[in-house]
């Protein structure tokens, strides 16, 4: 029995090793968000290059980060959000890009590249795949009923002015539950730099929220999607993609709720899902081929048409479905793009300060 067990173990180990050693040159391992690619993108890539793609999906930046920081993740292409990318670059997770291998780089939107470079100086490690903004999703009918027809729908004043917030309280206000995304909005509204590390300024930003706290229904980062769609709340600060999803749900449910999205004219936060190559990737050339493939206008436009998020590829815009391309929520005009800022990556001490302040805001004292 002992010998039998040992033989079995040896055999299975050998089998596993043979399986592991089988890696040939024509493979690529991609780790992306779930539902974040067009159905035939990978097939096209495989047909054109003969590279076989192993495609896995993750549900949160934390999942991805755990894999990357543990080392030897095995992936050649990963897609973190920009705020996480910044931390991971500092941890030395990624290799710098050789842009001479990426001739399609010229297609990328320079304004968005500049915004994204807040997390990755000179865009040295990654390029933006899809992006979105953090603006105001609202129910125009209800808001106009409460605040009158001249409600400042395209300004942070809609929420940050206590008298407006007080009136909107009855129909429901929600904010994202994230100090690093919400406090910069208030900083920006007050005219301070969004990456301010000044205690005083952060305290003032916190005060903005403190004053309207009694009027806020809740702080939550995803609940507002269904609540907006069902008409339970009328104003939500949220991610553009989520608000558009709420709009689509409301349309599909046919419950008479209409939802709009606006990027406040003072400027708003934006986030970028960035494509990068881990330092220990084993198929670097194939990874470059895939990156370059994703920068092709026809390919990335198809992804946008299928997932609904805006891409950061200027050359692809004419190929995007008209309904998406002409929607200012997804494709804001160039001058609005320039008012956007990337969510800054703050040192841990400032983050702690913000988190503590945010907890006070949520508790309301």
């Amino acid at each position: 029995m002992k010998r039998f067990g040992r033989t079995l173990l040896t055999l299975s180990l050998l089998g596993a090793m043979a399986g592991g050693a089988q890696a040939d040159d024509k493979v690529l391992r991609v780790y992306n968000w779930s539902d974040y690619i067009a159905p035939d993108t990978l097939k096209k890539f495989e047909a054109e290059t003969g590279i076989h793609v192993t495609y896995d999906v993750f549900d949160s930046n934390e999942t991805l980060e755990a894999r990357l920081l543990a080392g030897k993740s095995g992936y050649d292409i990963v897609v973190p959000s920009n705020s996480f990318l910044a931390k991971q670059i500092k941890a030395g997770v990624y290799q710098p890009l050789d842009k001479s291998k990426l001739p399609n780089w010229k297609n990328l939107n320079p304004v968005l590249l500049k915004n994204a470079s807040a997390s990755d100086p000179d865009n040295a490690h990654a390029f933006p795949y899809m992006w979105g903004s953090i603006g105001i999703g609202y129910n125009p009918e209800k808001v106009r009923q409460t605040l009158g027809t001249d409600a400042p729908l395209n300004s942070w004043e809609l929420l940050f002015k206590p008298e407006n917030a007080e009136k909107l309280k009855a129909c429901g206000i929600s904010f994202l539950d994230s100090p690093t995304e919400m406090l910069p909005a208030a900083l920006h509204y007050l005219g301070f730099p969004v990456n301010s590390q000044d205690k005083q300024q952060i305290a003032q930003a916190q005060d903005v929220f403190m004053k309207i706290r009694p009027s806020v229904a809740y702080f939550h980062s995803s609940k507002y999607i269904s609540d907006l769609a069902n008409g339970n709340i009328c104003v939500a600060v949220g991610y553009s993609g989520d608000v558009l999803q709420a709009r689509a749900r409301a349309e599909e449910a046919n419950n008479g709720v209409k939802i709009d999205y606006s990027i406040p004219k003072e400027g708003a936060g934006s986030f970028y899902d960035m494509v990068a190559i881990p330092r220990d990737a084993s198929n670097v050339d194939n990874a470059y081929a895939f990156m370059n493939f994703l920068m092709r206008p026809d390919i990335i436009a198809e992804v946008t048409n299928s997932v609904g998020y805006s891409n950061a590829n200027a050359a692809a815009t004419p190929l995007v479905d008209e309904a998406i391309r002409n929607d200012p929520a997804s494709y804001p005009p160039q001058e609005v793009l320039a008012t956007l800022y990337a969510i800054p990556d703050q040192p841990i001490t400032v983050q702690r300060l913000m988190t503590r302040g945010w907890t006070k805001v949520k508790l309301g004292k």
Partner: protein
Amino acid sequence: MKRFSFSTLMLVLGLLFIYLPMLILVIYSFNASKLVTVWGGWSLKWYLGLLDNTQLMGSVARSLEIACYTAVAAVALGTLAAFVLTRVTRFKGRTLFGGLVTAPLVMPEVITGLSLLLLFVAMAQMIGWPQERGLMTIWIAHTTFCAAYVAVVVSARLRELDLSIEEAAMDLGARPFKVFFLITIPMIAPSLAAGGMMSFALSLDDLVLASFVSGPGSTTLPMEVFSAVRLGVKPEINAVASLILLAVSLVTFLVWYFSRKAEANRKRAIQEAMEQTASETWQAQPKQPQRTPATA
């Protein structure tokens, strides 16, 4: 006559509590609407859509594969551990060994997962294996905690066994191996099956361990479902879940059916044997007291 006694009411409520969610899940898998919570009429399109969704179906196949491997490995290892713990009553470090075997039962999965991940990374650096994490590492991880469950189930059964039967076999000249395979194994077979099925189920629904130790190309079904939830659950997932429910109920039913049949056969065989022995002894030596045949 009381129509609805308290216990009937509790029974109904309990059953509803357990099975109503599953029923709703199955009903909504036939939903024509894309939104899980909005009813849009009957449709089979999500089941048809499954045929095209290679990613989801791939993860189902992968999960089933891992669950099968895990069940086999966990039963083998768990039985050995249980055997040692119940039969070898005195050896150095027995208490420690017993504790170690059952520790994974109470260990939070996150800790097991993290430690296994660190182990695999360190091993890859030191001995070059596992080169990359994948099915193999998930299998190992699942086996570590499933073996503990099997050990508990099997050792309970082993403790109840009548040692004299094994001793009788050895008296008649069987070597320990032969005794183990011909006598012990058949007697503990039900608990082996139970342990195996439990391991299968535990492995099939494990999310935490798998997400720690999986690698490229080894996304299991729970991981797939969990990451899809970010954009709202799609009825396709309901469809997969319904199919799994169907498969599980079918297997359970078949197991029950065949075991009932086997039990009936066994009873009949015993009955026949008893009658036969009785008539034989009566014919041969009517004076001798009747031997009662051993009941298994």
